[in-house]
């Protein structure tokens, strides 16, 4: 016991440790909450990593061949063999092709004019029509592009040596242009904010509803330490989730680990400060769990959509791009992707890290102030 007297931990530390212990026990004992915090993000990453594939292929295509020549059939075979378009059968006329678009049986119709083979052989100009279902702009862009590129190549086969520009592309980081290595780090960022913000907001509102927060408030513990103790387990859970998701991403989806992972660790810590801070802030603004949940939801959903995780920020209109500068998810997804895929280090992403730190400090500070005021 003499050792304890020599180095007695400060009172604040004891209080803090007690709250952490209580929170850990409470969280671990509720198996369903543990499931939601740990297993659900993992499951979602795996399912969504497979589901979100922007790589367009196998676009169902019907062909109206008015030519019926060998040459025409050869062109169709070559175009459909590429994999972007999938053969969905023949139709007698362009009108029947349109009908197939209406019914959703096909997303593209290829119309070969009469005498196409003869015209091509004779070097006369010919016109091929492609009718696209434009409902999904991404898909129609890719399908139309494939047809234009193929017939452009066919046309140039016959042409003589003309001056042209040969552009050879070299794709960095993700040469086969696969979606999962890009989307999985983004999904992790999204799941992390959903889990930490909403669970914190609702957890605190629940304590307020049940009155247990007031009970603890009459004990000698300081509000700041109470708060710190409540947040700590979630920081660890957040780190654990990131570790789990990055591991799953690497093993299952081939996410490369090109950068120094300490960058990701620092970014995660700063990011969690923001997401937990927002959760805390929401709980101080709501009077019950339902409001907390809706508030958390109203933050997380727009934040996820306006972060550049699913669609590029540059594709947004100017005023909306400015809003994204206020979004911690924006900075975290940039750091995570640049770090994992491109090997970016502190010297590359320090502006994003500074932004995350400023946000974290501001939001967490504001939340702590409000929390103390409500408890006092």
């Amino acid at each position, binding site marked *: 016991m003499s050792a304890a007297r020599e180095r007695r931990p400060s009172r604040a530390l004891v209080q803090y440790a007690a709250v952490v212990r209580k929170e850990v026990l409470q969280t671990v004992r509720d198996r369903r909450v543990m499931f939601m915090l740990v297993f659900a993000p993992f499951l979602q990453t795996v399912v969504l990593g497979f589901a979100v594939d922007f790589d367009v292929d196998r676009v169902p295509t019907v062909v109206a061949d008015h030519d019926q020549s060998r040459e025409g059939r050869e062109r169709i075979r070559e175009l459909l063999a590429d994999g972007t378009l999938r053969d969905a059968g023949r139709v007698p006329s362009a009108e029947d092709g349109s009908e197939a678009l209406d019914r959703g049986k096909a997303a593209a119709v290829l119309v070969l004019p009469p005498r196409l083979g003869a015209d091509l052989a004779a070097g006369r100009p010919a016109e091929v029509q492609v009718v696209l279902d434009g409902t999904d702009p991404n898909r129609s862009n890719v399908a139309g592009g494939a047809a234009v590129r193929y017939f452009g190549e066919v046309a140039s086969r016959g042409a003589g*040596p003309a001056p042209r520009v040969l552009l050879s592309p070299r794709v960095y980081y993700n040469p086969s242009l696969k979606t999962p290595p890009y989307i999985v780090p983004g999904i992790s960022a999204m799941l992390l904010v959903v889990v930490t913000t909403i669970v914190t907001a609702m957890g605190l509102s629940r304590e307020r509803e049940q009155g247990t927060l007031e009970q603890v408030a009459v004990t000698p513990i300081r509000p700041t330490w109470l708060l710190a103790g409540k947040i700590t387990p979630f920081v660890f859970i957040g780190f654990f989730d990131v570790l789990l998701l990055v591991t799953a991403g690497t093993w299952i989806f081939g996410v490369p680990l090109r950068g120094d992972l300490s960058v990701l660790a620092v970014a995660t810590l700063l990011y969690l400060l923001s997401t937990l801070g927002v959760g805390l802030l929401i709980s101080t603004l709501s009077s019950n769990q339902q409001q907390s949940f809706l508030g958390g939801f109203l933050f997380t959903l727009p934040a996820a959509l306006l972060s550049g995780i699913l669609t590029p920020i540059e594709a947004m209109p100017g005023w909306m791009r400015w809003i994204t500068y206020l979004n911690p998810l924006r900075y975290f997804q940039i750091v995570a992707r640049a770090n994992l895929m491109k090997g970016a280090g502190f010297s590359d992403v320090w502006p994003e890290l500074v932004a995350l730190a400023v946000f974290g400090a501001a939001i967490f500070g504001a939340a702590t102030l409000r929390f103390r005021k409500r408890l006092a």
Partner: protein
Amino acid sequence: MTAGRNRPRLFLLRVAAMAGKEVLHIERDPRAIALALVMPLVLLLIFGYGVSFDLDHVPLGVWDLDRTEASRRLSLAFTASNEFAPAGAADADRADQAFRRGTARAVLVVPRGYSKALSRGEPGRAELLVDGADPVTANQVLTEADAIALAEGRRLAAGRGAATSPPLEVKVWTRYNPEARSAVFMVPGLAAYLLAISAVLLTALTVAGEWERGSMEQLFASPVSRLEIVLGKLVPYLGLGLVQLLLVVVAGAVVFDVPVRGSPLLVLASGFVFLLGMLGQGLLVSVLAKNQLVATQAGTLSSLLPSLLLSGMLVPVDNMPAPLRLLSSVVPARYLVDALRQILLKGNGIGSVWPDLLAMGLFAVVVLALATFRFERRIA
């Protein structure tokens, strides 16, 4: 006045009373009602303006080693187009750094000897370094760059008097959404998404709240039957959901010119069948989960993300691997997204929408039956 004739009236009366109580709950919570009606509009703006893959002015670095008139013409062909915007000069090291920092998405490299090759009548060779991390953007960059290089080649050929018109022309017609606007694609999907979220989560929360506070047991002590409680709780949210659907479709038509080519009645009918299933799912979640915290997480897990990502709203279902396509066939949002796109964009009628309605109806029946069954068990 036999008991038999009285029973349906009493039943309706009790359901109406339960519904009235629930409406009061909703009304007394102005924040919740504001959220339920403001959230659709906020999300509509975000999706309509913000969720787009269509990039203009992609930052392009240029590394010109040739430094001739011809090479400058080539880089100008890129940077003067709407698709690319100049991001300054670059070299091999700085290309990598620019990608890592996100200041450029592609770098055009014009090697020495480009103009000499052209003047000899040989093809001019150039290289395009592309940041492939984001595959959608990279694909767009590659397609656009190809088109620009082709056009530049034609311009050079025309200046030389070579044959300019290619003998084979491809004419592309894009139907339903010729300007390829994301909003037209997104709004029907968004309607399904919003309905899924608010119906599942609000029901799950309200019912779980009653369990948590113990007021459900009080309700059981009243003469109202289980079925009447369930129906009474669901009816107001059904109404709220239909209002949300109308709000999104009308706002989409006004703000984003999303067409309403088919019957509005069919839109409402599809929404109604879909909502029944979603409310049933919310009820099931709340019966299985004991408290609001678990109910929301389970509701999120089972409705929010699948409706966003497995419904075909953002990513076409056809592109998914087979097991996920199978999984998506039990996500009712998939059928509503398909039905709404057919009705709104293509103007299709019941003749081609019925399989979707049938699938949603089937889901609703199964899930409501399960929920009522578990509900009975839970209180027994």
